[in-house]
């Protein structure tokens, strides 16, 4: 009896070895989207000052936001989904890359949205598990606003001397459905043949304030929480600039 069991096992193992050995090579590869931030041509990290075009020092305490419906667009316009919703938090390196294994194709662009769509925004954060980016534990939900799409908290030294004290505190907590933006960025690349392809997406923090078409003034437009007491135009400007601040 024992002998029989052993023999079967060995035969099984040998068989499986050969079966797997005979499989033709797949054409699939692995893909990683990596998020980094910069400030114009300066490097960026939290709590570290950058100098703005008016020679003011600015440093961020917090930079945290949702990206949703992230996908890679193929040459034939079909899409490979990377993530339905991702919470990017520059204080947590684990949130700064998104990977998918076993995909293949010739791609022409990266597509994503900033913020959450109206269905996602209607989620009860207590109804999803803690590991879900929409969970209550992520610190991105207020009952009166629903999800905070973009959270940026900064400290500025407005003296222009480069050594004054931090005396100005811009604060942006932005949500509501109308602040959702869609972004498509072109980039031609292929994933195949057991290769690892990494695409680095930069958030240029400077562009949030000094956008391509409009400037968000850190003095006169220094805060919004999209509530009653604030000017919604600041939130709209922030959301527009934010969506245009991504580059490869």
């Amino acid at each position, binding site marked *: 009896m*024992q002998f029989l*069991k*052993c023999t*079967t*096992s*060995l035969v*099984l*193992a040998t068989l*499986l*070895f050969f*079966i*797997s*050995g005979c*499989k033709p*090579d*797949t054409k*699939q590869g*692995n893909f990683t989207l990596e998020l980094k931030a910069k400030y114009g041509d300066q490097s960026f990290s939290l*709590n570290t000052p950058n100098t703005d075009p008016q020679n003011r020092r600015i440093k961020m*305490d917090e930079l945290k936001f949702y990206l949703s419906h992230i996908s890679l667009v193929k040459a034939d316009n079909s899409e490979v989904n990377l993530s339905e919703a991702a919470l990017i938090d520059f204080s947590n390196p684990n949130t700064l890359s998104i990977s998918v*294994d*076993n995909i293949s194709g010739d791609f022409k662009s990266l597509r994503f949205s900033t913020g959450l769509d109206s269905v996602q925004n209607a989620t*009860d*954060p*207590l109804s999803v*598990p*803690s590991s879900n980016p929409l*969970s*209550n*534990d*992520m*610190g*991105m*939900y*207020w*009952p*009166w606003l629903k999800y905070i799409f973009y959270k940026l*908290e*900064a*400290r500025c030294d407005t003296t222009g001397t480069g050594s004054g*004290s*931090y*005396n*100005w*505190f*811009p*604060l942006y907590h932005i949500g509501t459905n109308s602040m959702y933006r869609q972004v498509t960025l072109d980039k031609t690349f292929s994933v195949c043949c*057991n290769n690892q392809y990494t695409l680095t997406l930069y958030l240029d923090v400077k562009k949030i304030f000094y956008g391509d078409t409009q400037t968000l003034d850190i003095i006169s437009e*220094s*805060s919004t*929480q999209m*509530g*009653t*007491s*604030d000017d919604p135009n600041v939130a709209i400007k922030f959301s527009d600039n934010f969506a245009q601040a991504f580059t490869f």
Partner: protein
Amino acid sequence: MRKFSILFLGILMALLTLENCKPDVPDAPPGKPESDSLYIGTTYTIAKPFRFSNINNTYADSLTYEGVELGRRLFYDKHLSSTGQLSCASCHKSEFAFSDAGHAKSTNVFGPTKRNAPSVQNLLWAPKIFWDGRSATLGEQAKDAFHGEQDLNVPNAIQYLEADSEYVRLFKKAFGRPGDITEEHIYLAIQQFGMTLISSESHFDKVQRGQEQFTESEARGFQIFLTERGDCFHCHTHGNDLLMTDNIFHNNGLDSVNDVNDFTDKGRGEITGDINDYGKFKSPSLRNVALTAPYMHDGRYQTLEQVINFYSDSIKLSPTVDAIMLKANHANGGVHLTAQEKQDLLNLLYSMTDTSYTNNPAFQNPF
């Protein structure tokens, strides 16, 4: 990639079947269980209150009634201090939601404590414990308190517990066998008791559940609390839940300092060593806050009126002050409330008092 996983699977399966090659061993002969065999306690299941966050505490699954009961006894036992004068309950009194009401600083076996003793409740949901977050679990926290506040002498304590037949019985029921009176088990039992301290039956909760109604003033107060008018929700709520704290560290603008090194108490910064954390403290839960005066980490405010006046008009600047505190007015922060708004906010805070918590017989002194 797939090729390798199939290969791996194959080897694994083969190895699993090879397990069968071991000669068959007969089962151990059936026998009477020994009287001292492992005692399996009765599972204590925590019911998550209405609109509380998910329970992510790894210890929540292993609670037993026996462990909790033992923990309660240890919590109230004064013998577990070097002077024989202090128990946890000396500074954490059930009638004040386990705070040391009336004392800005408590008195431990050496003299005054460094900080104000906060209320204790719903810490099952707190990822970090103490004003500065230095403990990650209630067991670590109990160890800290025993060695700090109570100056516990471990060999003496164990000798005392072993000499007490009631404790011998309780330890055995909670942890298994005689000889299980250990330092670690003292902390684990207190941790179990601590996890059952849940407050969720205030008027405020009942309003959220639709069982009671706010007065007009409370309702206005809640609006102030929950919106940018008062901005309290930033730090004293956590998403959509009702814990009334975000359990995160902030500097809410109590002190004016130019240099972070000038904070009298560096708070969270003392633990992380990060100057961005200097002067930050864990947001306390506002549940039962009407019972827990004096307020703040050093007990500087005697009344809730003083606290509200502070948030309204006396926010101070320092390098780590939370940006939220300065939103309304960068030069002189504060949300600048009217007298009526202050009264409304005060009434809201009073609505969070939960006497069924403070009177719960399961949490009282068993001696």
